[in-house]
């Protein structure tokens, strides 16, 4: 066979892909949309590493406060930067106060001119927020005149809230906490990228495999759209004299054309999606469209692999079909589905993963290829097992109503089609269940309990230096929504002024406040106590001896300070410690303010703890506004019971975004094939309606027809997912525990997709059941 003939056959296939009038176009369009959605998701996936890298680079490029200990000298090219960040509801607002010290002071990325005092430049998202009614409370805190917006290169996400405001008198505070002097923006010690924790790496690998496998399954299903019509068309070709090989090549050409159009669609979808991605914030993350650039090599791979896969799937589908000139003959008995190799795949996958059991701890390394291979084999094994199970189960399904009978008989006749339809969902659900198990299993390691008792205190405000504690307490107590205010000045004393060996805590407050941390026998202004029974307080009893001299802020080799000597008063009383508002039993010295010398009072810093009335909406914003009035750099802390590791949150976020996309995608494909199937049965449906079949009966049969294979698919997905989850947990050396809530919720989501698809296919079904379908003329 020469090359010319090949080309001609392929070209003929390409023509067929779009020929055939309206119906032909619709079919080609469906295939292309299906493949296109898959391609778009693939491109998005290939773009994610790039997006993460760009984000990382941008973050590094605007780094200013590094908490480093080398202090620059003031110059004409220096800038003093102070962290003025705040929070609004659940969102973080990145904020900096900038005070240039000379004409050559550096500009932060994305800012054209440094804002003067009383002015600020803001991110577009913050600008929108401040200008909206929603942002009124925040505007109170950030009253400066908005003189410009921060450009894209200065932000790490399209919805990031950020501002730079002009600062004043910042120089004396340099290197006192979050105030620093810089001569350029950018991380002075750039890290190429953090070396990833092996377990996190495992999670990321699995997330990618779990998301991409359904996409592959989906593409395979999409190129089979309209398969029966294609077979008939090929039969017509045989009639006019093509041989079997030629028809196969024509079919390949058709598949390729659909896939190629799908690539075009996919590129368009991706570009559109990229634009949309810029305006979407999911789980606190947002990106700029320009971040999402697929790496060229991966994009090329997609461009080659998708059409190739389409051709392969088509040839595979034609395997059991003999196309005769007068019609299509399916090989008499479709070879019975064999179990052994279907079972072998997931077992092999499990075996591959099993070799790595227990390597996730203590710097162990996972073999990436084994992980990917194992997870893929297991998931693909699910798709291989599903048709067998569907066939075996529906063959045994017994009697029921008419709707049930219609559905079961149809499934018995073409269980493969049904199984293919739900394969994508099964894989996605299995993968998601495994991941959820893995997440909840290892979550303990990455979620630190802060030990804070949120029922007693919900916010904490740091009293800035030089501001009296009482005035802060007063102002906060007068703030809307604040129930109670506890305030202490806190500090540490050491046994020596330099290189102290023993330390203990000092808590200063009025009698009422001190009663919150210890049960005082009696208390008058000027009293001093030593707390007994405090946690983590080994040296308290030793240092808190009447008449002993102790030192506030002892200096060390690393930190030069000005220690303040102070003598423990003679009338020191003992007081047993109780849980303070933070849920912690304090030790050390408990002092009323006048027990402290004036100099020593300078060495303690005030902390105010607030109990809030949660029924007041936005109560935290009122507190923040008050705090900002006291000190523009104050950022009151909101207490939560746990804090998650940021990296961990990012992966979870990725999974949620991805799983949502995949499920929507699969839902769309289910709907498309459902509609195609219905259209092919238009005449039959009309005649059934003619002899009086209730519409509800037919609707119900459509539901059963989807629900039975989906039910089986979800069951298998749960089993497979739990097996995979268990192995992954063993790999990370975490006790295996089934997270039933996530199993239920994931199968629930899968079922919801089915229900949605059925509901969406009902209107066309009802339309097809109209008697017009009987008209032949």
């Amino acid at each position: 066979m020469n090359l010319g003939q090949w080309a001609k056959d392929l070209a003929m296939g390409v023509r067929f892909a779009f020929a055939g009038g309206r119906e032909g176009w619709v079919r080609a369009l469906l295939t292309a949309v299906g493949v296109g959605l898959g391609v778009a998701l693939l491109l998005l996936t290939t773009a994610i590493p790039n997006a993460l890298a760009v984000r990382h680079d941008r973050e590094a490029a605007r780094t200013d406060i590094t908490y480093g200990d080398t202090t620059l000298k003031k110059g004409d090219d220096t800038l003093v930067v102070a962290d003025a960040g705040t929070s609004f509801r659940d969102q973080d607002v990145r904020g900096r106060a900038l005070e240039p010290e000379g004409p050559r002071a550096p500009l932060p990325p994305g800012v054209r001119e440094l804002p003067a005092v009383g002015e600020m430049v803001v991110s577009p998202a913050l600008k929108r927020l401040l200008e909206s009614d929603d942002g009124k409370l925040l505007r109170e805190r950030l009253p400066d005149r908005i003189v410009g917006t921060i450009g894209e290169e200065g932000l790490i996400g399209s919805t990031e809230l950020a501002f730079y405001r002009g600062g004043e008198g910042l120089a004396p505070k340099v290197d006192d906490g979050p105030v620093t002097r810089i001569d350029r923006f950018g991380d002075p010690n750039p890290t190429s990228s953090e070396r990833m924790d092996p377990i996190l790496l495992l999670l990321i690998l699995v997330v990618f495999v779990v998301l991409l496998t359904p996409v592959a399954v989906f593409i395979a299903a999409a190129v089979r759209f309209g398969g029966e019509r294609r077979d008939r068309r090929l039969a017509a070709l045989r009639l006019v004299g093509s041989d079997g090989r030629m028809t196969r090549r024509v079919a390949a050409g058709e598949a390729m054309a659909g896939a190629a159009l799908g690539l075009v669609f996919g590129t368009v979808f991706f570009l559109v999606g990229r634009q949309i991605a810029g305006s979407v914030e999911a789980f606190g993350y947002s990106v700029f469209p320009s971040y999402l650039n697929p790496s060229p090599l991966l994009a090329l791979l997609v461009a080659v692999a998708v059409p190739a896969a389409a051709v392969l799937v088509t040839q595979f589908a034609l395997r059991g079909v003999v196309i005769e000139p007068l019609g299509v003959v399916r090989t008499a008995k479709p070879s019975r589905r064999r179990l052994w190799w279907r079972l072998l795949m997931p077992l092999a996958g499990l075996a591959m993963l099993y070799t790595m059991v227990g390597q996730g701890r203590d710097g162990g390394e996972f073999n990436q290829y084994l992980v990917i291979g194992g997870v893929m084999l297991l998931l693909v094994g699910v798709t291989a097992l599903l048709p067998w199970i569907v066939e075996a189960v529906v063959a045994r399904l017994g009697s029921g109503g008419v709707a049930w009978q219609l559905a079961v008989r149809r499934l018995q006749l073409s269980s493969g089609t049904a199984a293919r339809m739900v394969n994508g969902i099964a894989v996605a659900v299995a993968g998601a269940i495994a991941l959820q198990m893995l997440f909840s299993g290892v979550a303990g390691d990455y979620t630190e309990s802060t030990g804070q008792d949120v029922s007693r205190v919900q916010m904490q405000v740091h009293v800035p230096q030089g501001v009296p504690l009482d005035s802060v307490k007063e102002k906060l107590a007068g703030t809307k929504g604040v129930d109670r205010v506890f305030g202490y000045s806190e500090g540490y004393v050491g046994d020596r002024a330099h290189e102290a060996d023993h330390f203990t805590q000092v808590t200063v407050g009025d009698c009422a406040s001190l009663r919150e941390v210890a049960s005082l026998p009696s208390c008058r202004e000027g009293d001093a106590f030593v707390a007994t029974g405090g946690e983590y307080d080994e040296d308290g009893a030793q240092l808190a001896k009447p008449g002993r001299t102790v030192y506030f802020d002892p200096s060390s080799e690393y930190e030069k300070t000005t220690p303040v000597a102070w003598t423990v008063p003679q009338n020191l009383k003992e007081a047993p410690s109780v849980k303070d508002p933070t849920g912690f039993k304090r030790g050390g010295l408990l002092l009323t303010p006048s027990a402290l010398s004036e100099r020593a009072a300078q060495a303690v810093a005030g902390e105010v703890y607030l109990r809030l009335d949660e029924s007041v909406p936005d109560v935290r914003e009122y507190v923040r506004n008050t705090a900002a009035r006291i000190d523009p750099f104050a950022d009151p802390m909101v207490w939560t019971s746990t804090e998650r590791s940021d990296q961990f949150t990012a992966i979870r976020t990725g999974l949620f975004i991805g799983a949502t996309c995949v499920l929507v995608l699969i839902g769309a494909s289910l709907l498309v094939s459902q509609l195609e199937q219905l259209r092919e049965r238009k005449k039959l449906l009309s005649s059934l309606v003619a002899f009086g079949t209730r519409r509800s009966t037919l609707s119900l049969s459509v539901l059963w027809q989807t629900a039975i294979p989906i039910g089986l698919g979800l069951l298998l997905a749960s089993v497979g997912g739990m097996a995979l989850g268990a192995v992954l947990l063993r790999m990370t050396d975490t006790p295996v525990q089934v997270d039933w809530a996530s199993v239920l919720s994931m199968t629930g989501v899968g079922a919801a997709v089915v229900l949605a698809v059925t509901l969406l296919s009902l209107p066309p079904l009802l339309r097809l059941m109209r008697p017009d379908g009987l008209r032949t003329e």
Partner: protein
Amino acid sequence: MTAPPGSLLAAEELRKAYGPTVALDGAEFSIHPGEVVAVMGPSGSGKSTLLHCLAGIVPPDSGSITYNGRELATMNDAQRSALRRSEFGFVFQFGQLVPELTCVENVALPLRLNGVSRKEAEKAALSWMERLEVDDLRKKRPGEVSGGQGQRVAVARALVTNPRVLFADEPTGALDSLNGERVMELLTDAARSTNAAVVLVTHEARVAAYSDREIVVRDGKSRDMERVV
């Protein structure tokens, strides 16, 4: 003109248009119990539409259809569906057997839609299949039987509920003469034995010859030939 006395199903002044296409333009019809009436006419003349209107599948734009003294227009869709299920039977040219169900299940289907138990329905179905000489096909699926056999299965299905009116739209359209004749013989015999009326839409004279009388539909208007002659 009012419905002739004693008629089971009668229609007057039927009008029906599909968009700009006028399918029926003042058609009349009536049939008595046990009567076989052929509806003839060139293709596109509106004979299928007449059948669909008479059977309550398609509501006419105007005109009246009375079945057993009841005006179809006063019934809602569910009532008309129930009427079709229990009182009418249908045979079409093709595309009517559910390909997934076996032949006996197909025949039993209308009974099951009426709530008859599966066992009883299939028993009744089998006896009708015997009468139509296709009982040996009970386990086969429609894809595995010939056109003539399939059509006989369809006739058995149409008769299994003992309908008062059997609607047949080109029932032999896809069959050769011999099979077509056999189907017509069995269909009319069965209908006569149960005193069912048969509305037979056909463009073939030899099929129409199995009828007692014929009406001709031309350009949406009907002519009752018996009254003319």
